């Protein structure tokens, strides 16, 4: 009897203290939460003077931390490098991930700032989540449409379910063009001619210049 009391307590403890499995949010919920957070950042800066470099920097930083939770950047880079991933040393891999994040952020957030300059106010109905397609228990796609100046731009998020982070984005299709597939073809091309070290340097240059380096001239 006493032993069973002990076991009951053990059971109770087990039930109470075993950590809940990683967030059970659906892919669509994950994107909805992301959109909501991005809009919150927009709202926070809606009255700010985005002409000032300081404010622009703070805006980018806020967006960056929102995006870090949702985008599986490391996986994006791994997919973009394909079979060449293994040719990079661990240090180079880390460098590539960091540089990739900077290229994406510099351009993506730049576009968002441009967008903000052109619309009077940003509201929830500019982004419409239209569909969720579940390929398997770990792979899904969330479809959305961005309304911009009378245009409808389809933006689809390819997602994977991860042990700790829950559903994360591993690819974005803008107007049906996959970002990862596009980078994959670029890296493939570069790595046919260059060593991993040179590719890291090319990325570095790209980040520093803030725009496309003139690789055309370097051939």
């Amino acid at each position: 009897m006493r032993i069973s009391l002990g076991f009951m307590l053990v059971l109770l403890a087990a039930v109470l203290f075993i950590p809940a499995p990683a967030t059970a949010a659906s892919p669509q919920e994950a994107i909805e939460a992301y959109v909501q957070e991005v809009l919150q950042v927009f709202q926070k800066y809606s009255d700010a003077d985005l002409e000032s470099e300081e404010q622009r920097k703070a805006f980018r930083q806020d967006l960056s931390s929102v995006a870090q939770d949702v985008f599986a950047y490391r996986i994006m880079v791994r997919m973009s490098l394909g079979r060449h991933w293994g040719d990079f040393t661990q240090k180079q891999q880390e460098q590539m991930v960091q540089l990739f994040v900077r290229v994406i952020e510099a351009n993506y957030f730049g576009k968002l700032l441009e967008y903000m300059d052109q619309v009077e106010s940003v509201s929830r109905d500019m982004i419409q989540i239209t569909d969720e397609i579940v390929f398997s228990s770990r792979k899904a796609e969330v479809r959305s449409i961005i309304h911009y100046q009378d245009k409808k731009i389809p933006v689809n998020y390819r997602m994977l379910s991860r042990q700790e982070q829950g559903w994360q984005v591993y690819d974005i299709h803008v107007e049906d063009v996959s970002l990862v597939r596009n980078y994959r073809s670029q890296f493939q091309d570069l790595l046919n001619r260059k060593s991993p070290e040179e590719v890291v340097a090319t990325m570095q240059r790209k980040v520093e210049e803030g725009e496309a380096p003139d690789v055309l001239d370097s051939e």
Partner: protein
Amino acid sequence: MCSIRSRQSHFQAKEASSRACPWSGFFVGIVCCVILVLAVPVRAEQEDNGSGASAEDELLSELQQDYASQPGVADPLEPYNRAVFRFNDGLYTYVLIPVSDGYKAVVPEPFRQGMDNVFYNVRFPGRMVNHLLQGRPLRSGQEIAGFVINTLFGFGGLLDPADSISWLSPPEKDTGTTLATWGVGQGVYIVWPVLGPSTLRSSAGMVGDYFLDPLLYLEDEQLGWWLTGADNLNNLPSMMGRYQDMKDFGIEPYSSVKDGYIQYRRNKIRK
């Protein structure tokens, strides 16, 4: 794992000793609780890392296969294509983008959109014929209905009310997509001066589209050319915007534009 094992044996020892003391069961419970609270998260984490990592590796190799299974495009003309790409890049950067920026500054966006709508509306015969050639008569009918509604209720196509009715907006089809549905292969990649990326099949398609353009058949031939020119100028901002985006995001612009074009065309055919 080692620490867990030692905790388990500790637990067994306590369990054995509980027979001696009447209160010991309660204490055993408390001790077990404490032990479990300490042990369970550690154990769960260790298991997660083990199975989680391998399951993720499996998923990643599945994704790799997804990407690897999509073929690109043959590019035997690469040296020529790169030279033309470089020429176009200069032309876009120093001529067409400034022209496009000037046009954007002078002509407000609603007017540009309206003009785009008018040309899209007028060019419905090309889309209609291609739907028919692809064996989709229903879509042809939708094009006709869209044209009638936009012309009657959208001020001659200036507005696009049919666009808000999804049934009246079938996917856009051109002659290149018709050739694709007939089984013509995409052929090699070609970069045309001024026009930019294309394939052999899409280039043949452009010839077909040229003949399906109603503006070609205007009685006043010169007017047709002027209108085509105006339409091209009006399209410049969105085309140059897209090119600039590709360049901004791209590490290697030539491959970025090539792949972007191929993906875009493939999706247009699939729809």
